[in-house]
């Protein structure tokens, strides 16, 4: 009988702090997030006759928009799939919290 070594080999994977280990955008429950162009932003605000202040918010640290390179004030377009009524759109303004 051979004595087993008390220390077992461990494999470590190094990940950058900014990249998430699991890519949430690939998850089926995470809808598509896209950055709105300046022109589209203007149009959106005009369509709803609002200022950016009236939009719902999203944290700039939100995992779903880490791949987008966003800054405060950007507008994110979220396309949600609805099994009953097709796609529905949602817009959020990026904030630093």
């Amino acid at each position, binding site marked *: 009988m051979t004595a087993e070594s008390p220390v077992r080999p461990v494999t470590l994977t190094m990940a950058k702090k900014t990249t998430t280990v699991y890519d949430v955008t690939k998850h089926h429950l995470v809808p598509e997030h896209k950055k709105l162009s300046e022109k589209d932003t203007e149009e959106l605000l005009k369509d*709803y006759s*609002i200022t950016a*202040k*009236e*939009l*719902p918010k999203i944290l700039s640290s939100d995992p779903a928009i880490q791949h987008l390179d966003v800054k405060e004030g950007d507008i994110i377009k979220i396309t*949600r799939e*609805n099994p*009953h*009524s097709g796609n*529905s*759109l*949602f*817009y959020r303004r990026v*904030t630093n919290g």
Partner: protein
Amino acid sequence: MAKDDTEETAEEPIVAVKADKKGTLQMPESAPKEVIPGLEGLETVKTEPAAKQDFSQIAFQQSIHKQVDSIVFGVLSPKFIKKMASAKIVTPELYDSEGYPVDGGLMDLRLGVIDPGLRCKTCGSRLKECIGHFGYIELARPIVHLKFIRVILTVLRGTCKECGRILIPKEKIAKSKELLDRIDKEEGLDSRRKAVHAIIEKLKTTAKCPHCNAKQEKIVIEKPTSFMEGERRLSPIEVRTRLEKVPDEDCEIFGLNTKSARPEWMILTVLAIPPVTMRPSITLETGERSEDDLTHKLGDVVRINQRLFENINAGAPEIIIEDLWDLLQYHVTTFFDNEVEQLPPARHRSGQPLKTLTERIKSKEGRIRHNLAGKRTNFCARTVISPDPRISINEVGVPKIMAMKLTIPEVVQPWNTEYLKKFIQRGPHIYPGANYVIRPDGRKKRITDETKEAAIEELQPGYVVERHLMDGDIAIFNRQPSLHRMSMMCHRVKVLPGRTLRLNPAVCAPYNADFDGDEMNLHIPQTEESRAEAEILMDVQTQIISPRYGLSIIGCIQDAISGNYLLTKNITKMPRHQAISLLISIGVTEFSRLPNKEEVSGNEVFATLLPEDFNFVGETKAHEPIVIKNGKITQGYMDEVTLGGEGSGFLLRNIHQRYGSQATIDILHKMFKLGAEVLMMTGFSSVISDTDLPQIAKEQVTTILDEAEAEVNALVASFNSGNIDAFPGRSRKETLELKILEVLNRTRNKAGAVVKENLNKSTDTAIMVASGARGNNLQLAQMAALVGQQALRGQRIHNGFRGRTLSCFKPGDLSPEAHGFIRSSFKKGLSPVEFFYGSITGRDSLMDTALRTPKSGYLYRRLANAMQDLKVEYDNTVRDATGKIVQFMYGEDGLDVSRTENGKIDVQRIIDTTE
């Protein structure tokens, strides 16, 4: 009510209300007042000299005088307190030897009137017209205002003890301000407050003044009102001088607007004395005067203040002055709040604590929750409810004694004078009579046997008669908890004998009412406008379709369902005369739709209630097709799915869609009565033998049970011999339990199937289940075959003794009967052990409901309050009161659920049913 009114005009000057010029009508100082008959309550101002205007316009223009543009909250400065005061209070005495208020006392006549007949010395108006006026006292030494100690502390900690500057280097001050302004602009006030807090938190630990290099010491509060700097106590005088040194621009960073709140104002040098109108004295029956708690407290303040003055002027030793000063601090503190920790509350001679300012406002009995958020109304009633299927669905039965107390004001007109005189003639004791007459000047007179002749004599157009409640009057009916809008609906009054409020059982569902002692409330709207509003928005008819699931919430229940089921399914032939007497008994007098045959079918009788051009395609509970063509049932029968309420009732939904709410209510009411009437004709009883099983079925059930027991025993045996492999993530014991549970549940289902197959389907008990009126197959099986496994939190019953449920079992016994399996049926009766198992789960579910109800109720309340001002705008977005978007399309699909059928729009059915 009137008594409360006087004390409610409190602390007005803390809040400065700015009226802007947007208000369409400014009230002129001495506007000529005019009373319009019937609109006495409204104060009116003539806008143009004697212009010809119709009344409605005048009333409309009056409704807006001024518009609130902004409200500024601040702290009263000593200067402002003196300026707004009408009297300086100098003596603790209240009345002189003749019982007359002392000048400069706490009941000074310049502070307002509380005695009828007297006039206010400040404004000259009488009781109830004068809202009262503040006074002030000069404090002999500064006093810390209890409610501001936290603010004072932060300012003291954040500023230099020597030079008074904020402990931020000069060059950074401007930057901090900029940051705050930016946050304010971008994210609003809440975020600014958070940022202010963050800045102050950092200042606390600064040891040296960046302006004058003075060393800073740590300051703490010694409860309740002292400030300690290291070991030394700071006197209020010192604190005040330090606060005075803080420049305005530094205050801004602390979040103080120095125009309305200088920090040194938080240390009081003068004290505002509230008007007597908010602390009226009451005269006892003995003629003795009893003062309000606030007056008592203020008396203490004034007395000690006086003593302190005298001692200072006489040059008394510092210890005595210090003691008096502390005592004054105590009295002022308890004047603001008598429930401060570390301070004994000031008490009456009887020992009960005084109710001072804070106690008046806070808690459930305080001004906010009791008087402002919790309004109470007159013209309402509450009592036990009971059912009455004969009154209409939108009626409410009101006991006569209630109808004689609840009244409706009717304005006397030339054309109804005689009619109303008859009510007065009958007086308050003969129904329908009248209780009060209101003169055009607003005086209310009670009608009695003595006064009624005079009242009739006097009566003329413009008078108002408060007559008894009568049939057809409008009432709002309500049952708590009022969780959805259907909890308050508008009904027509029907005055009935008896002592309970009566309602049609069809509306039990929206109110969630039953008759096991439930009580409900009734409100009688008093104005034409409120009655119109109630009729249009709250009528029972308008609430048939629930906005929750888009199906009718009001529908047939119980006997109405089983009756119509029997009629349309089982009665294929009945003599025409019998059909006619059935229809007559439910109020149908038109028989042209009934086929002119010797014998008619139940279907044909039922169909007479349907509109002639009605088409419908649907399914029954048993998934059999129903077809209605041109108002005739060509296939199928009625049951819960077509007629029921609470999320079924597809037939009703379709009738509503095509013919509107009024027709639906009428048809529903007739269906309801028809169902009950059919049962009265045929008889309907549920008996014990309804659930008798034939001998073969009984044997089958026994075999199934024996097999199951054997199977479980085999499982236990293989577990004991180690032959059971654990499921992934489970222990072997857990695996065994799961397997046993699976076997036993399968057993009950098998037995249920046997019952379903063998039970006599023509018994009335089975009919109730089949039609969906009451009960289900599981409950039938529990009565006929076996009750089944009792489960506690998804497991068999394990608790009780160590290793066993009851002491009659061996420890470690894993058999079904030792862990909550009830093999008897309810009809056969349970053994003591089985009964005990049933009691365990019964108690558990009782506890569960008792604990869950308040929790879910509170959760719902928070949700409802959070969403109360959300609104769907014309562009389909959902926005809150400030215009912020919550959803870009209501519910992501923009559907109004109340316009759908179960949340869906069934296009196929629309095509099928339109010709």
